[in-house]
């Protein structure tokens, strides 16, 4: 009996162990061989002639459709497969040619874009002006459900002038259109999408970009390979994998063990561990994303509606101290509503830290700081150290006697509270990436904009007027004027341009971009 039991036990064990191996693994069809062979490659750091890279990512893409989901996670990945018509300079954020060679505006309602010749898709088809029209129409077609459509509603018609020229007509003057062309529009191969349908195209993308699609295993990895006929030349790194690791500590461990070569968003309190590692470096860039403390003048019966109270808070918050003590100096201080790399940026006056002046202003406004109680809402984990920053601001305001209660919100409810005008006196929010004034100023300082926290009828009139100006110089002046006025009004406490921090293998040539993308074509191994 004993022997029989033992025998059965061994048999069952063997069956179970076999059942738990490759053949049955997770329905990720055919992925197993690749994964195991890749693990071998990944551990070969330092070998000469390394031609593959693994980038650790916090989340999976939702779709491989271009111009569909407004989501940085998607963009950072698919922009290796698809090209944009207009690109951004990686360090200055300026518009630069990509599939477009040049562009000009014909009149206030018309833009003409000249396209590059000789560009081919991964399936061998030629890229033409018709394809640009098809892709813009794809965004505009309500049936396709592109989340970008809301930004493009002012586009009236796209006309193909010649195989290399396309004209975009808008219903109102739309001087910032090119920013949307650069930010939203990537070119999918139209015939492929029409042939296989949207559902299939969402899993199997064909573009003109430097990398061809190989395999996508949901919540596991995305594998791409170099497209040798890429119009800018052959990519140096032949194989590219995005591996999805949601947990930061696990991402860090995967980096330290050599499984991944690059990842973004290192919390500042974890930098030390990476700095001590021999084969890694920290990449840093001042992102075009801005962080601010909104002083919610739209809240009913709030002392914040008083300009002097807002100014007082500006004097009482010590931004330098927050930057240095909580963010270890990682961030670029701002004094106005726009970041320094914003094309419409103008230098505004810095309130500086002056608690006495703050108390004086509060008293002038009729408030005794000791009796003032304010609320401060913050998300947690959305921006670097966001809830710590909120606590820091509360502590600073308490120094002059203001009692601040900090409320930490889940990200979705935080946004909803702002939209539904349920926010109390102050809240923390980030904005961007923002490269021009209108998308920030119109969206954050007008009465009806969903994420606004400020309204002044006079300023709103001026914003509307500035939006209509098409010529660059008067437009720049109008927005410069607005920036000064908003600072004077104490509409926000501007905090900083966010610092994007990357863990980078030290033998990788990689420059972090201001738009947060990972363009692997620009990377190489030393």
């Amino acid at each position, binding site marked *: 009996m004993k022997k029989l039991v033992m025998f059965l036990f061994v048999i069952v064990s063997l069956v179970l162990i076999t059942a738990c191996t*490759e053949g049955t*693994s*997770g329905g990720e069809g055919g992925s*197993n061989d690749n994964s195991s062979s890749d*693990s071998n490659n990944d551990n070969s750091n330092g070998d000469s002639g390394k031609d593959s890279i693994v980038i650790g990512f916090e989340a999976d893409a939702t779709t491989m459709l271009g111009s569909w989901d407004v989501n940085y996670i998607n963009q950072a990945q698919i922009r290796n497969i698809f090209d944009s018509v207009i690109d951004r300079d990686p360090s200055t954020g300026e518009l630069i040619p990509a599939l477009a060679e040049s562009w000009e505006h014909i009149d206030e309602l018309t833009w003409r874009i000249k396209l590059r010749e000789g560009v081919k898709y991964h399936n061998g088809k030629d890229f033409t002006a018709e394809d640009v029209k098809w892709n813009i129409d794809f965004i505009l077609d309500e049936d396709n459900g592109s989340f970008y459509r*809301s930004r493009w509603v002012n586009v009236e018609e796209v006309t193909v002038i010649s195989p290399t020229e396309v004209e975009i007509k808008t219903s109102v003057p739309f001087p910032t259109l090119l920013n949307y062309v650069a930010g939203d529009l990537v070119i999918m191969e139209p015939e492929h999408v029409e042939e296989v349908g949207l559902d299939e195209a969402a899993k199997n993308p064909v573009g003109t970009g430097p990398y061809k699609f190989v395999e996508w295993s949901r919540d596991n990895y995305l594998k791409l390979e170099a497209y040798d006929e890429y119009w800018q030349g052959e990519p140096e790194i032949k194989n590219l994998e995005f591996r999805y690791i949601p947990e930061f500590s696990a991402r860090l*461990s995967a980096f330290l063990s050599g499984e991944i070569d690059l990842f973004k968003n290192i919390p500042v309190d974890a930098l030390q561990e990476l700095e001590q590692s021999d084969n890694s470096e920290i990449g840093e860039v001042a992102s075009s994303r801005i962080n601010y403390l909104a002083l919610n003048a739209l809240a009913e019966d709030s002392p914040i509606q008083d300009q002097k109270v807002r100014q007082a808070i500006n004097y009482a918050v010590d931004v330098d101290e927050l930057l240095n003590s909580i963010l270890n100096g990682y961030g670029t201080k701002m004094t106005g509503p726009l970041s320094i790399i914003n094309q419409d940026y103008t230098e505004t006056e810095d309130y500086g830290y002056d608690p006495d002046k703050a108390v004086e202003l509060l008293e002038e406004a009729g408030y005794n700081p000791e009796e003032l109680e304010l609320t401060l809402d913050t998300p947690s984990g959305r921006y670097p150290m966001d809830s710590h920053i909120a606590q820091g601001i509360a502590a600073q305001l308490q120094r002059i006697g203001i009692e601040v209660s900090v409320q930490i919100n889940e990200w979705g409810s935080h946004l909803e509270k702002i*939209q539904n005008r349920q926010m109390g006196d102050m809240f923390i929010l980030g904005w961007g990436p923002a490269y021009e004034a209108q*998308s920030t100023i119109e*969206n954050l300082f007008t009465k009806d904009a969903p994420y606004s926290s400020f309204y002044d009828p006079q300023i709103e009139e001026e914003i509307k007027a500035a939006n209509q100006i098409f010529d660059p110089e008067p437009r720049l002046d109008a927005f410069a004027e607005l920036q000064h006025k908003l600072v004077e009004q104490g509409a926000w406490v501007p905090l900083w341009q966010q610092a994007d921090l990357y863990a980078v293998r030290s033998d990788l040539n990689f420059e972090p971009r201001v738009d947060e993308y990972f363009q692997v074509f620009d990377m190489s191994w030393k």
Partner: protein
Amino acid sequence: MLDFIIKRFLQVILVVLLVLTAVFFLMRLSGDPVSLFLPMDASQEQIEEYREKNGYNRPIFVQYADYMVKAVKGNFGDSIRSNEDALKLVLERIPATAQLAFSALFLSLLISIPLGVLSAYKRNTFFDRVGVALTVVGQAVPSFWLGLLLIYFFAAQLQLLPSGGGGTPIHMILPTITLAAYSVARFTRFTRSTMLDILRKDYIRTAKASGAPTGRLIMRYALKNSLIPIITLVALDLGTLLGGAVITEVVFAWPGLGRLLMQSLLNRDFPIVLAGVFVIAIFYSLINFIADVLYAYVNPQIRVK
């Protein structure tokens, strides 16, 4: 017997519907997904248009009725984020989760039954005390902490095993250990106490008195009789393992159902969350249902009660 089965089965359906209802309302109370999906520079008009198009502006009970009618027909809607059939996305993840759950279950049984039996047999010895202490620790350690600790030592420091991801047997080792830790502790304690109960029974004493060898006594008389309650516990735990591997899957980037649910919850992708909860509730209720029916079959008294 048939009456009993039908009655129990109706209860299963009721439980699943109640679970769906509770999750539906809890999720909707947290708000709608619009603010997370549209670009932040979308205007109020566009936000309203989107709400209307997707029906989020209707009264919540109308949304609920509409949802339940469709769900009963097996239509859980499309994922808001990816536009794919939500139930299909959920079902695609089951094999990965099942693989992890079964291997964890197997590992825990492999360790816990011999350990529990030995603990009971060597009751009140040093060995027993260490065993009991370990099971207490095993049940108390949070799985994410254990997972991170394992990753730190075996992946980052020793570089022996991958820190996460799925696909090959080697990727399974760390998540399996993490997921099994709690079950090992639970099963060991349970085996120990069941064995202790049985070892005190008269027939064991009689067998012992009649000179039966120890091995035979334990394997044949005691363990065999304590297996039934252990099997029940295992069946219940399997449901928990299948549904509850969320944290382990997130820590180890395991592409299973738990991780899909977590991601979808953060995104407020309601159709996926509800389809996922539905599948887990069905699993859990069916496993209980089967256990109950088998019990009733073995012990007719249960049917009468």
